[in-house]
């Protein structure tokens, strides 16, 4: 007889965390992206996501490989470089009931795919949009990306002389209602942000600093684990109260700002820096720029604004998935063709 084992925890759907994992990662050992994948698995498990309702979208690059590594019972689409946003928009139009998770990288989103990311935010397509941001092109072996910091050096010494693009301040400028930055080395914060993003309605953009252990983890890089640890400045202690368990205690002690999320969950933010208000995007923008000038990067909820219209509000389409409407709902009868013909006679 074997010894009694502790029961494996299940979520409200009766699924275990194991039901949310995917294939084994083929990224370099120690890659920051794998830590993000782990948090995504945990968040999906805790949020009781029905795996079959999840669409995992990505472009091309190391980050874009990761949708294979989580939620193997969800449909995934590893599309073309920088263009997952359009594929996601199409899937969302076809079926409003899908939960869209898009994983991209700094090259994928901030260079080749910037136009699509910008317009996805403008339309407020419902999606959790994660940028796994390491400042380099990993899959092509270590060229600078557009988010590389000024003065950061490549492995062989080349120094970046151009200013970086910041996906978060850009998203705020575009009116994105959920903008967060985190660090793959700060799993607790990232986990709460992911859960809050899943509870959001519309585009939730999360820039996660995720060091590339192979091409951008050396001393002269500003995106190494060490540099990130040294310069990360968390703005808040975050807490999350899911809609289905309002008693769950995850609220940090002390006075906290509280944000009601569209699905009924609550996000609590206890400010570590008193002067940062994530509901004021212009002040937040200024604070982010000032921090960068000091060589720091702020993490946490950078901007949050609920209640905005989403793409579905703009489209005025049926709530039922358009993809599976029966023929009777989408093929007008012979009398309609006859009327159209009559008009043209």
């Amino acid at each position, binding site marked *: 007889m074997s010894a009694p084992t502790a029961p494996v925890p299940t979520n409200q759907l009766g699924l275990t965390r194991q039901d949310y994992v995917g294939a084994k990662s083929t990224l370099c050992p120690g890659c920051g992206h794998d830590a993000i994948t782990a948090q995504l698995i945990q968040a999906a498990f805790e949020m009781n996501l029905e795996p079959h309702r999840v669409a995992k979208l990505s472009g091309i690059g190391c980050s874009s490989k990761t949708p294979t590594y989580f939620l193997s019972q*969800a449909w995934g689409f590893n599309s073309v470089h920088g263009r997952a946003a359009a594929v996601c928009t199409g899937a969302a139009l076809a079926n409003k009931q899908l939960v869209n998770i898009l994983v991209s990288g700094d090259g994928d989103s901030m260079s080749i795919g910037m136009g*699509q990311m910008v317009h996805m935010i403008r339309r407020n397509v419902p999606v959790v949009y994660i940028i796994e941001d390491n400042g380099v092109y990993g899959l092509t072996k270590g060229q600078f990306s557009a988010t590389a910091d000024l003065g950061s050096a490549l492995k062989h010494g080349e120094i970046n002389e151009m200013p970086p693009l910041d996906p978060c301040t850009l998203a705020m400028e575009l009116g994105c209602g959920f903008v967060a930055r985190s660090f793959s080395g700060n799993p607790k914060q990232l986990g709460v942000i992911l859960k809050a993003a899943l509870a959001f309605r519309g585009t939730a953009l999360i820039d996660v600093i995720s060091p590339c252990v192979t091409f951008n983890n050396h001393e002269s890089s500003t995106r190494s684990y060490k540099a990130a640890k040294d310069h990360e400045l968390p703005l808040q202690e975050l807490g999350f109260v899911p809609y289905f368990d309002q008693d769950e205690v995850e609220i940090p002690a002390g006075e906290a700002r509280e944000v009601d999320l569209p699905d009924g969950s609550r996000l609590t933010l206890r400010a570590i820096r008193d002067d940062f208000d994530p509901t004021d995007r212009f002040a937040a923008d200024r604070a982010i720029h000032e921090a960068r000038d000091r060589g720091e990067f702020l993490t946490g909820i950078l901007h949050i604004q609920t209640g905005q219209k989403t793409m579905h509000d703009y489209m005025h389409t049926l709530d039922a998935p358009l993809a599976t409407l029966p023929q009777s709902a989408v093929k007008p009868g012979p009398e309609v063709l006859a009327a*159209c013909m009559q008009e043209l006679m």
Partner: protein
Amino acid sequence: MLTQSGPAKTLAPDGLVNDFSIEVATVNGSGSQTANIVLMRTIFQMGVPVTGKNLFPSNIAGLPTWFQIRASRRGYQARKQGIDFLICMNAETAKDDVAKVGPGTVVVYDEPLKLDALRGDLHFCPVPFQRLVAACCPEPKLQKLVKNMIYVGVAAQMLGLDMDEVQKAIAKQLGGKQKAIELNQGAVLAGYQWAQAEAAPQDRLRIQRDHQTEGQIIIDGNSACALGAMFAGVTVVAWYPITPSSSAVEKLIDYAKEYRRDPATGKSTVAVIQMEDEIASAGVVVGAGWAGARAMTATSGPGISLMSEFLGLAYFAECPGVFLNVTRMGPSTGLPTRTSQGDIEMCARASHGDTLHLCLYPGNMEECFQFTYQAFDLAERFQTPVFVVSDLDLGMQNWAARPFSYPETAHDRGKVLDAEALARIEDWGRYKDSDGDGIPWRTLPGTPGGKGAYFTRGTGHNTYGLYSEKPEDFQYLVDRLKRKFHNARTAVPAPVYSGSGCQRGILAYGSSDPAVVEARDILLEQHGKATDYLRVRALPFADEVAAFIREREVVYLVEQNRDGQMAALVKDFYPELATRLRSVLHYDSTAIPAQTIVDQINACEK
């Protein structure tokens, strides 16, 4: 009511009844389009077969534009070279317009242009437009627009048009706007009465009532494609505006507002989204098709260039989608408002690597409607992008056609497994050819039951959709895709044959059809040359295409591009038949006339 006074009592011995061309030379943005369509519609309403072609500039206002109306008692719909009745309203081009016409042409013109001094062999008719318009339209702002209706009235009188029909055409064209209808009808009348009193009667051209157009419609190809998509149950449309395709989506939006609303909620059953560019439009089609929607985009050549990466993904990952290409004249920006068949090879092979796409080539209005409808079935049946290759001539010009018949066939949603079917299957692989026809079974995101999820990728994959770099997996996959493509040859529209088994063949497709039909009559009647004709309507080619070429000594392949692109495709698939093909090409950006075909065939046979 006016009596049908007629222009001159009798017709000259060389007079043309219901068989001549009118050209109206105007400036774009002057509102002449309505007047020109009224003129065309009147002839149509009088039962005379007629077509209208607008040669317009890529510009909003101020550049020259020409509208050509061809009446043809034999029902020819191709563009006719040679003008019989010219209306000169554009001072900039008037001299050139007059210089190009043949002797005896009737020329109506704005009096101050003084064109009668240019030539002595034409029938001139100077019209005091300004005086006439001032009398019937006191509002100076509207005079520029209303002036056009005066030439309609003049032409109506000189050609013997029935004024009741003119007035009906105005009412139809202005769709219930009573004030505008009255103003325009007044202007037509002013032109008519002036011509009756002042114009020198002409005895060469006449429209007489016939009954050939009874029950017919006038439509453009883009509207026909929009109707096809609506009845096909399109649910996601992503687009980026580009001439000459924009009106296809705009028409679809109009139709959908009326006929694609959920009766219970009033909400739309189709999402139409204007994207930031054609790349994103293609991405939406791929994503929506993947998620199970009937998705489409409409664009033109430059858009296809941009969409090519996504087209390769859709081909390789097997996502359905309909791509309407209303072709314009390239390369590059080319002539955006002129017609061409220059995207034949690009559509067939759009994207890098070995790709082959299903292409449908509608040749008339009914086919624009039917093929767009059918494209959705084919896309879902074969899980691949399907091109509807139209062009500006079909898409934006006005064509008389028989009313479309209702597509009775049920939508074919292809091989899709639902939760119930999945539960019964032990070993399912997204890319397994379990039926041996090259078409695997797919599942849709959101299907419950815990089975059927798979990973879609543009990278190499095995039959389970798992990433694979194995050479045998890759070769198996691209060979299966080729087999699937080949198997579609009996599902796509079959070619149309017309002839009696002679040795001289003509192969053509799309908008060249009307010119070929007319050219065959000319070749037979004026040159004693009989021809057989096969009209290709789709890629992959049906077996009849090779048979047609093989059974003939020489086959002329007519197309509207420089390089003989369809000929190149035919030679690719049937290299052994290459020596029998002769290209007949027209690529000056105008629609192909019959005489071009006659001349090139005669030149080949000298």
